[in-house]
């Protein structure tokens, strides 16, 4: 199968859907003439022209709101945030308008919109540019929140998101745009709300999503050499969550570790832990554990950033603990 970059998968998904439906358009900062801040819309202005690929001023509140209004009137916008960190100045349009319009109008107005861009940290960028928003937005009914961790998942899920009649948020990562992976030439869709077992195993279930799953997968690889078999589940969607896949795995392994790049309080890991203790209490042989970022703002220095993020060694250590292999 051919290998392409994550950023190419983004551009392919958007371009294919724009060829399919004239009402789909893309707007955001630097998406047109600059070909995307991370080149994730490369070539799209040339193909679709300035009517459908629009550069905006740095005014997230304004252009997010215009996009939502255009969706009320029949269009299907894709809004790129250069990073989800910048979505905070537009959050009223996402939470109060996009997520609520259908319900407040008694089903009269639907908002078929995609908001997408990179989330969480991307190296040493300091506190304002290193925040993870998956659990924030996943908290809000009316939205769907998708966090694809591979080029294959991104393409299939982004295409589904663009065709979805509900508002969908796609969370990517600056540090994944260069990732390469197998993506078939032929068209495919991946349903929103279905988790994927990225690595099958028998001893410990690890639940993760997004960029940080690479840490979980690296830990699982190394733990296999120690004789501990980890099953790594990629949630792929954090609203709605595919609880069944997690519960089935825990019933088999009897152990659960969550690995998430987010602050601990009210995280997706917390929600997974609640549902697992409720639905699989009698199957658990160890406390559910979670590895999140530190409960602090991210900081600039390399030592501090290392201390902030969950590491492979930490995952290995916690997995050994729940497997009682601590010797």
């Amino acid at each position, binding site marked *: 199968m051919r290998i392409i970059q994550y950023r190419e998968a983004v551009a392919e998904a958007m371009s294919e859907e724009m060829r399919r439906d004239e009402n789909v*358009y893309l707007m955001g900062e630097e998406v047109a003439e600059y070909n995307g801040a991370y080149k994730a819309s490369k070539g799209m202005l040339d193909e679709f022209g300035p*009517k459908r690929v*629009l550069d*905006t*001023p740095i*005014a997230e*509140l*304004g*252009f*997010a*709101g*215009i*996009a*939502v*209004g*255009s*969706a*009320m*009137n*029949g*269009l299907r916008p894709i809004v790129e945030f250069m990073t989800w960190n910048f979505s905070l*100045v537009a959050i*009223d*349009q996402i939470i*109060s*308008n996009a997520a609520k*319009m*259908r*319900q*407040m*109008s*008694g*089903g*009269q*107005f*639907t908002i*078929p919109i995609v908001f997408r861009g990179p989330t969480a940290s991307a190296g040493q960028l300091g506190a304002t540019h290193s925040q993870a928003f998956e659990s924030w937005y996943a908290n809000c*009914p*009316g939205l769907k929140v998708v966090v694809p961790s591979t080029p294959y998942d991104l393409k299939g899920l982004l295409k589904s998101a663009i065709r*979805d*009649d*509900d508002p969908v948020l796609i969370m990517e990562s600056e540090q994944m745009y260069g990732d390469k992976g197998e993506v078939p030439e032929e068209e495919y869709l991946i349903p929103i*709300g279905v988790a994927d077992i990225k690595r099958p195993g028998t001893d410990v279930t690890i639940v993760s999503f997004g960029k940080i799953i690479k840490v979980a997968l690296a830990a699982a690889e190394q733990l296999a050499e120690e004789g501990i078999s980890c099953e790594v589940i990629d949630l792929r969607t954090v609203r*709605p969550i595919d609880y069944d896949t997690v519960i089935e795995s825990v019933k088999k392994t009897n152990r659960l570790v969550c690995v998430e790049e987010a602050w601990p309080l009210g995280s997706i890991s917390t929600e997974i832990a609640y549902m697992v203790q*409720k639905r699989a209490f009698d199957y658990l042989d160890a406390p559910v554990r979670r590895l999140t970022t530190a409960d602090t703002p991210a900081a600039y220095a390399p030592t501090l950033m290392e201390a902030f993020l969950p590491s492979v060694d930490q995952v290995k250590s916690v997995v050994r603990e729940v497997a009682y292999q601590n010797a």
Partner: protein
Amino acid sequence: MAKKKLTKEVYLKWYEDMLFWRKFEDMTSALYIQQKIRGFLHLYNGQEALLAGALLAMEPGDKMITAYRNHVQPIGLGVDPRKIMAELMGKVTGTSRGKGGSMHMFSKEHHFYGGHGIVGGQIPLGAGLAFADKYEGRNNVTLTYMGDGAVRQGSLHETFNLAMLWNLPVVFVVENNGYAMGTSLKRTANHEEIWKLGLGYEMPCMPVDGMDPAKVYDAMHEAMERARSGGGPTFLEMRTYRYKGHSMSDAQHYRTKDEVAEFQKQDPILIARSVLESKKWAKESDFEEIDARVKALVQECVAFGENSPYPEAHELWQDIYVQENYPFIKE
């Protein structure tokens, strides 16, 4: 579109419509005191000319969006007023099946795009409606209303810039009733000429006497024709006054009764009536007939609302997602 003549029929319609809106709002106020309407309730009394003049300027397919003082606009656009009253009472026969309430009226059929509860949140939405009309090549205009309190929100300034940049067919209308809740305009900005905010964006802008439906129509017609012919946005500061408090819980300590009385002398309904009288387009018995019709329709609205059921509890999970069987977390 050619300018319409302000005929006898126009004034008769204005008079009856505005009187109905006034009496409808008065009734909601009475029902609120009886606790049959709950939540927040913001009345349009005094501002009726802003709607009457605009409706005459609108063409089929033109759109309207506003903030939360929004009960009578959909009625003016053609929504059955009984459904608005039912929505206010939280009944399943309401425009949003009892899910929106006073601040969130909508009618897709009649091009009323809400009914928005966050101050200034609807301003970019209005530009977005116009963006879609332009994108699709439809020759329509969106009227985007806001209160004077909303003009200090960033959403207005970001939207003004984008609407000019993209030359969108939109008219921004500020209903300047002098008070953002209980805070007068002069206590929130260094000048009170709101229309001048358009100047920085080179957007055509002007103040308008918002108490006279004829003057509102003139300004609206000019602005909407500019937008319709590709001339882009306009910003109109409609100077008006609300007779009632910001909402029902407002004791109105921030203004005097004399001030309210002064504005009531320029009441839009009285203006329409005096034109009808001076031109001898209506006689006393005509006004009595109109009054009786208005009163009867208001009573019909109340009866419809009161006789309608509340939505059943399972409705809480409906109309949120288009997706059928969305897996809501339950416990």
